[in-house]
């Protein structure tokens, strides 16, 4: 018994020491960025690729001497898509003096909106979170920085219109994941249906969406739409591709929102060959044909390592680079504005709000962040599966922007 108790005491003591020793002092010329990830939870397929992209870009910046002389230290915390660890992560970032943080996940963003404002640390929520966070006056410290679900809805309808010519009298099916994020674009779609004169019917896929034979059957054999907009997460996009293909629906008449648009979704559905014609919506560039990615590869080769295989999954990897690039640019603007002095999180927020004309060779849209618009315009691209790879068919565009702005204004008036 004695030895037993002692060993337990030993373990407890080590744990406590380590816990206390956790926070170390950091060097003078260093900026801390926080990054929340989901590498093990329900959306692990995103986090395991996106987060390495983020780290690699930061490493690239650091290898070139950092931002205006400041090295960047990234603290990553995997919250497993749970909310309490996301809160803990935010507090940790705050303690370590992070000037900004990358959020991940809609419920986590919702739970942190208020804290970000109280603590005056900006958080980015690209492609998820509440659409109304685009309004910088209402949520001063939350930055969607990429097209929200509302903007994606507007863009999807615009793309359908381009494909079908005129939408009057046409039928569009909206196949969505049955959670708040999936339902978010509904008001936009309903509004556009009235304005454009098309018929809209919605089909819900309950989580986890591993099987949707009945919904697809309903769509293809009863509703028979002219176009399908899908908004699915996790494993369900690949199931939708497979099922639609199986029922003989032309995939060229389908457009997926940003989280159903990765190579991994198409691979899981049976490979690129299966999904010929599938249209995907992107908020960051796709493919490897960008100078910054070549620089990252060169950086790995210079260290005598092979570039990581996450780089092959370019959709999510490039999104990681996208987020990192905007974070770095915000910090750069902040440092410049302070003539080289160490920026506070408040300065970085101002830096973020003055981002303009950063394109990274086309990886980023021509977005412009201002104090009022934290979404940067809601730009997306459409990439289509053609001949075994994703090909760009529509360059950066904003779909039905006036409708979205109308909704943002109405939402702001409500609160």
């Amino acid at each position, binding site marked *: 018994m004695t030895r037993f108790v002692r060993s337990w005491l030993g373990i407890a003591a080590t744990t406590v020491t380590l816990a206390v020793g956790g926070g170390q002092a950091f060097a003078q010329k260093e900026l801390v960025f926080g990054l929340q990830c989901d590498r093990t939870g329900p959306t692990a*397929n995103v986090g395991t690729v996106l987060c390495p992209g983020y780290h690699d870009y930061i490493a690239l910046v650091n290898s070139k001497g950092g931002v205006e002389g400041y090295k960047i230290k990234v603290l990553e915390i995997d919250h497993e898509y749970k909310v309490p660890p996301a809160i803990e992560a935010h507090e940790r970032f705050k303690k370590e003096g992070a000037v900004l943080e990358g959020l991940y996940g809609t419920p986590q963003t919702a739970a942190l909106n208020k804290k970000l404002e109280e603590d005056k640390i900006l958080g980015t929520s690209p492609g998820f979170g509440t659409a109304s966070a685009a309004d910088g006056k209402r949520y001063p410290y939350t930055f969607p920085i990429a097209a929200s679900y509302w903007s994606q809805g507007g863009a999807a309808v615009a793309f359908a219109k381009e494909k079908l010519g005129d939408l009057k009298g046409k039928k569009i099916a909206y196949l969505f994941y049955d959670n708040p994020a999936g339902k978010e674009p509904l008001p936009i779609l309903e509004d556009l249906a009235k304005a454009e004169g098309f018929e809209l019917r919605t089909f819900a896929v*309950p989580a986890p969406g591993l099987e949707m*034979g009945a919904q697809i059957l309903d769509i293809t054999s009863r509703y028979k739409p002219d176009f399908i907009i899908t908004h699915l997460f996790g494993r369900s996009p690949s199931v939708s591709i497979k099922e639609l293909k*199986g029922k003989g629906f032309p995939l060229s008449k389908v457009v997926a929102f940003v989280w159903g648009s990765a190579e991994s979704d198409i691979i899981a559905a*049976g490979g690129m060959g299966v999904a010929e014609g599938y249209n995907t919506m992107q908020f960051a560039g796709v493919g490897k044909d960008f100078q910054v990615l070549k620089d990252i590869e060169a950086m790995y080769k210079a260290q005598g390592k092979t570039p990581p295989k996450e780089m092959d999954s370019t959709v999510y990897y490039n999104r990681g680079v996208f987020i990192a690039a905007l974070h770095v640019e915000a910090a750069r603007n902040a440092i410049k504005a302070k003539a080289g002095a160490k920026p506070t999180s408040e300065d970085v927020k101002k830096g973020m709000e003055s981002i303009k004309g950063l394109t990274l060779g086309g990886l980023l849209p021509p977005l412009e962040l201002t104090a009022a618009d934290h979404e940067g315009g809601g730009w997306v691209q459409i990439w289509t599966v053609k001949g075994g790879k994703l090909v760009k068919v529509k360059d950066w565009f904003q779909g039905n922007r006036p409708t979205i702005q109308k909704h943002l204004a109405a939402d702001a008036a409500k609160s």
Partner: protein
Amino acid sequence: MSEDLEFAFALVLSGASIGLMYSLIALGFVLVYKATDAINFAQGEFVMLAGLIVVTALGFEAPLIAAVVVVVLAMIGFSFGLEKVVLRPLLGRPVVAVIMATIGVAAVLRGWGPLIFGIETRNLPLPIGDEPIAIGPASLPPIQVVGAAVALLFFVVFNWFFKKSRMGVAMRAVADNQQVAQAMGINVERYFALAWAMAGIVSALGGVVWGSMLGVDVQLALVGLKVFPVVILGGLDSIGGALVGGLIIGIVESLAAGYLDPYVGGGTKDFAPYVLMILVLMVRPYGIFGRRQIERV
């Protein structure tokens, strides 16, 4: 056939084939419960592990047959070991202990599985093409036909095994009353291990079929949640029950999505099986085919 009837037929057919694929996973659960009274909340993770092993083997350029053999052996070994290390010490402990232990196993598998076998989503191609197979006025993806066939095959094999073979009869004796079985000279421990090994085989093929349908990564484990309504409906310890339960759940889901969703704003698919399950629990808690001796209050 009128269009409405055709639609209904297609819904039932698609539901039935998916339902049989649910039974495939439920079978693993039932086999273990039948023989050892242990409840496996990690059934989905078993399937995920099997899928990961198959794609890893295929990644080493192994032919499909070899990969399947590897996964079957690996899963037998794994479930065998699991029974020895985790479940045997918990014999005779309350239900919640076994449930939590398997939940723990599930977490371990989700944590270590991707670390060992790779994290990225992979495709598991089977040489069956992807042209839909026409059945009457409707059609099914080939993978669902294969999945349904595998489930039916297992049903026939296990039915024969439990009814006719000596080992199967011994196993039923163990399930019925461990002490009496032991007194009759049956090595109870060996049959426990055998039950787990059989569950391993079922999970291995479940992993191949479901992995091919969904692609393989950690999220494959989510199929495990479908097990519960199926087994409750069919009866926890009945092989035939797993089959019928799967069929009913698959068809109910399909019909709910086809006919209920338009009226209530969607999402009834996940919900309908559980409502049905609660009703069954209230009326026939031992399920359609289950043994009537349920722990009652």
